[in-house]
């Protein structure tokens, strides 16, 4: 009798416990959910909505679908920018992955003296804001700037090198800056993967008489696959969205040789005030990125 009376009370109590727990959960998740909604979802929907309209800065937008999307293939600047951005992405991803892997292998072993110092040193440029880093390198690269002075003092060159003076030099100089800024960060990603590989596997390999290269090729690389996938996704996505480095360092020059896709969006939206076309190109770029990432993850997962 008493039991049967108590049961609903307990159930209610348990109910309120779970309700409180789930409320707590909602509470914890809410800030992130709000941030994602306000700063990601709403802008995303707005950009898509904008791309369907002739969007005035002030005043009412008028529906003009598919006018903006029709404008994309007509944009001459965009055609060159796509080619350039792809070229940049390939070069940066290859060089950056190589550099990051090299650095990670160098500082992989914690027992050696000075390892933590080196790790910190390699990672440190990653703590500099990207735009700030671009400005920093701009002031290094300018004609008769500190870099020229130093190299002339060393006797390596006898007149200013012109770091940003030709399309190839400008691309090279930008990539040097990007590697300096991001190699440490990518090294950190790889390191987490390297640390997760058990030493026993290596020992087993060594007992079987494997050389250093064989250990790397047949143990490190396969076990590092998910980590490498993450690094590649980040690097490729970041490179396809390149903006700061070219906007600040080369301003798209010389002779329009380093205009990236995002710079074209910027020009359409903020210089020509053609917000609709800018939004349409953004939507296109987003679609390409989503597709690329899906493909990439699928290819990299196939071996598992």
């Amino acid at each position, binding site marked *: 009798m008493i039991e049967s009376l108590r049961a609903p009370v307990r159930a209610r109590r348990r109910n309120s416990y779970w309700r409180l727990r789930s409320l707590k959960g909602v509470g914890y998740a809410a800030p992130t959910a709000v941030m994602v909604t306000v700063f990601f979802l709403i802008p995303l929907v707005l950009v898509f909505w904008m791309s369907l309209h002739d969007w005035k800065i*002030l005043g009412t937008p008028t529906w003009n679908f598919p006018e903006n999307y029709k404008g994309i293939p007509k944009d001459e600047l965009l055609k060159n920018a796509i080619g350039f951005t792809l070229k940049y992405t390939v070069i940066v991803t290859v060089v950056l992955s190589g550099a990051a892997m090299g650095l990670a292998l160098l500082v992989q072993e914690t027992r050696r003296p000075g390892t933590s110092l080196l790790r910190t040193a390699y990672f440190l440029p990653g703590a500099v804001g990207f735009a700030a880093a671009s400005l920093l390198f701009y002031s290094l690269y300018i004609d008769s700037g500190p870099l020229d002075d130093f190299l002339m003092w060393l006797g390596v060159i006898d007149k200013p090198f012109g770091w940003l003076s030709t399309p190839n030099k400008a691309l090279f100089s930008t990539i040097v800056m990007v590697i300096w800024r991001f190699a440490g960060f990518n090294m950190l990603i790889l390191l987490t993967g390297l640390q997760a590989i058990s030493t026993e596997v290596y020992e087993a390999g060594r007992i079987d008489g494997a050389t250093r290269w064989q250990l790397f090729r047949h143990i490190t690389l396969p076990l590092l696959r998910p980590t490498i996938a993450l690094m590649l996704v980040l690097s490729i996505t970041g490179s396809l969205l390149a903006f700061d480095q070219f906007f600040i360092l080369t301003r798209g020059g010389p002779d329009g040789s380093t205009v990236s896709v995002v710079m074209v969006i910027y020009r359409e939206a903020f210089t020509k005030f053609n917000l609709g076309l800018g939004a349409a190109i953004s939507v296109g770029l987003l679609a390409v990125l989503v597709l690329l990432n899906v493909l990439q993850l699928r290819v990299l997962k196939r071996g598992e």
Partner: protein
Amino acid sequence: MRGGAVQRRWFAVVATAAACALAVGCGSSNDNKSSSTPSGGSNAAKSGDTGASLTMWTRAATQTQSERFVKAYNASHKNQIKLTVIPTDNYQARVAAAAGGKNLPDLFAADVIYAPNYVSQGLWLDITDKINALPYAKDIVQAPIKAGSKDGKEYVIPHTLDLSVLFWNKALFKKAGLDPDTPPKTMEEFAQDAETVRKKIGGDTYGTFFGGNCPGCYVFTFWPSVWAGGGNVMNPDGTASTIDDPQMKATFDIYNKLVKDDVVMPAAKDEAGPTWTGVFPKGKIGIMPMPSTTLGIMPKDMDIGVAPIPGPSGGESTFVGGDVIGVSSTSKHPDEAWDFLQWTLSDDTQTEIVAKNKDVVARTDLADNKYSSQDPRVVLSNQMVGKGVTPIALNFGATYNDPTGPWLKVARDAVFGNDVSKALADGKQSLTASLSQ
């Protein structure tokens, strides 16, 4: 950098919110009062100074001048202006973003060449009647007002004036055996002077310099030669390019030869703009076109001559650049904002703030004042205002100032390439395509 930008954006949001709150709080009583009084003249000066807090934006390039205005105005008025300075390269994007979110400040300045576009986007309030009611309306420099007009309505007044003029280094002229007190009267003479400096002195001293990878610099320093020679670079509407004008070709020919003959400092080719005015004060350049606003910040011990930019075979002209300012169309305090604008144009402000700091005055009747008469070089700049041109085109920024626009390629092909005529003929097409969009 990024963090800073985000912070500033937050600050702008908070500031705007605060301004809106104020507007709601004090709006009703003030609005009635100010709308019932006639605007313009000294009446407006009284009715507009109600103790409102106003927001104002300016680009970093004209920060010094804007800060002087705001400081003096806040010290003598009940209205208080909060000035936000925005990096020059970011300015357009910030204005566009703010306009889209209806968050424009009460007052905002802009590079005069962007004025036609901002006006056509409806970012500023029509202030035609207020300007015309000023007792000195006719004496205000007209070129910037014209750039910010549409269909007979005026939206802006000149905020700062920046003219292109020739600077020459008298010490280097003397050293090269040239008369340090005679500036060139034609671009031909300009080229000869520059060549003489290079040949006679040599080493790391060069004849001339320009921003060779800076589209706006070409516009500012090369076009006056075209106007001086009686030519033009566009049709009057700014919808078609006439860049193949004989005067333009002659000017490019001269610079092209100067580059080939090693008279131009080699760094010119990569000079993208940020440091182009910093080369002359180092004392290694004989003669070059410079912005008049930099005269006040040249080294004190440097003897500099100032002359108008000549045409290829005579005449003189200048690019009347700088900033214009207007009341934003979303401002809650248009009368208070106008109070500031008309104050900046008043006799006292123009003399004691603008002229005193060697800047060009925005009123032709004040060209000769107690400060400018102490320095004949300033009088020259003031007089050149009337002879100069502010080119007007709806797509000016996207065509000529944006480094990814068509103009930079045209100018670089013409100056550093081998075929000036072809560069200009090709350029005429790409420029017209961009202007007529």
